[in-house]
């Protein structure tokens, strides 16, 4: 009986339906908590580009974010879109559009003492690594050219190689004080070289590479280049 085709087919279908239903219930009941976690994680990533958050508690992160971070949406020309909210713009979906047509989120980080001043501007990026999507937040100084800090994330880069963009804090620090734009706001971005161990402290547009992870580095380079173009007009308009 157990070898009849009809039995096998019915058995498979029933098993799949039951398994899928159980998963659906689990997923449904946990979604809210998961979304909270993702939102909190994003806050941490944004703040991580401008300050050391390892010493902060969750409550402190929430408080600093609420007091000092002001998201807004701009278009390619750098014009602020007051009718759009952060939740209306999905960075990954916008990537499917031409750079000129995209809506771009940007986070103003207010000055710690004087909340009428913007200390930094943080923008999100999205790109492709070797295996899966990569993303980052890039914080710019108020001059609009200099990088204050970056934080990278990835989905499935190779642990110990490409995954270092996130796990190895040294990689992140290499981008600090580099220039995203040249003197006239040409979108030069920052280029991560192949091979590791060189000294690029004199070159404002080059950082040391990751040995064994050239393809991830290429993904990072392409991503930064693309978004330096996307945000070019906005940063130009600051001066």
């Amino acid at each position, binding site marked *: 009986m157990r070898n009849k085709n009809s*039995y096998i087919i019915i058995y498979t279908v029933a098993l799949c339906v039951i*398994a899928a239903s*159980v*998963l659906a219930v*689990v997923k449904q009941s946990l979604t809210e*908590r998961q979304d909270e976690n993702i939102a909190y994680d994003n806050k941490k990533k944004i703040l991580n580009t401008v300050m050391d958050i390892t010493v902060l508690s969750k409550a402190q992160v929430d408080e600093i974010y609420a007091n000092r971070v002001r998201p807004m949406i701009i278009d390619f020309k750098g014009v602020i879109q007051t009718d759009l909210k952060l939740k209306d713009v999905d960075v990954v979906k916008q990537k499917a559009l031409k750079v000129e047509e995209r809506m771009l989120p940007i986070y103003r980080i207010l000055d710690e003492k004087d909340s009428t001043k913007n200390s930094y501007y943080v923008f999100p990026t999205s790109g492709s690594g070797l295996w899966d999507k990569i993303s980052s937040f890039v914080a710019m100084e108020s001059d609009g050219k200099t990088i204050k800090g970056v934080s990278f994330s990835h989905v499935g880069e190779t*642990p110990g190689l490409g995954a270092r963009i996130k796990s190895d804090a040294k990689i992140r620090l290499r981008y600090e004080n580099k220039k995203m734009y040249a003197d006239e706001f040409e979108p030069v971005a920052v280029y991560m070289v192949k091979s590791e161990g060189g000294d690029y402290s004199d070159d404002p547009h080059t950082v040391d590479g990751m040995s064994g992870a050239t393809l991830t580095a290429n993904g990072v380079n392409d991503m930064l280049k693309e978004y330096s173009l996307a945000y070019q007009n906005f940063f130009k308009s600051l001066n």
Partner: protein
Amino acid sequence: MSTETAVVIEKKEREPLFSKKNRKLLVDPIDSDNPITVQVLGICSALAVTVQTWPSIVMSIGVIFVAAFSNLIISLLRNTIPPRIRIIVQLVVVSLFVQIVSEILKAYIYDIYLELSVFIGLIITNCIIMGRLEAFALANKPWPSFLDGIGNGLGYGAILIAVGLIREYFGTGGTLFSGTPIEFTMFTFPSVGIMAMPAGACIIVGLLIWAQRARNGYAEESN
């Protein structure tokens, strides 16, 4: 390499829940029939997730959960599963539990979820789980199968945590449980770089296998 043993428990009238045989199912895999050091299963994730202790503990709990419940379900279904698609059925059940673990981690310990990321998904392919389903759950009653799952999960976890402790201690230069509230440092010394890399895990697992086999007098069967 592996010495999977299909243990068949004979039918008996109302066996007590923790009879000697059942206790053996629970305790044996921790020592004399350990999935990593004796059966040499599940090595891949043992090398990958053991840089720190806390992720090792979380991973162990995940594997114990998946092993126990997929053993239980497969054992309950064992007389209905069509033999021709039994591997597929096992995979569906295992991946169901793995996905549940993944969703729970994502909801409650997001940091660890991100850190373990692909390795949670890879519990599906962990040879310990499939090995125990094939070798034990398909031929035994639900309760012994459940205990067998927990036992093998514990055996896996014991090695994982041991490797995690050693690697974290030497890899960081004296810190344990970093990233948790009970983080502490004792006797700081220059960190041993290789311990932070998979090669370090390979060495530690090798030493553990050696130590345990020397103690138990276990040897691979030679042909």
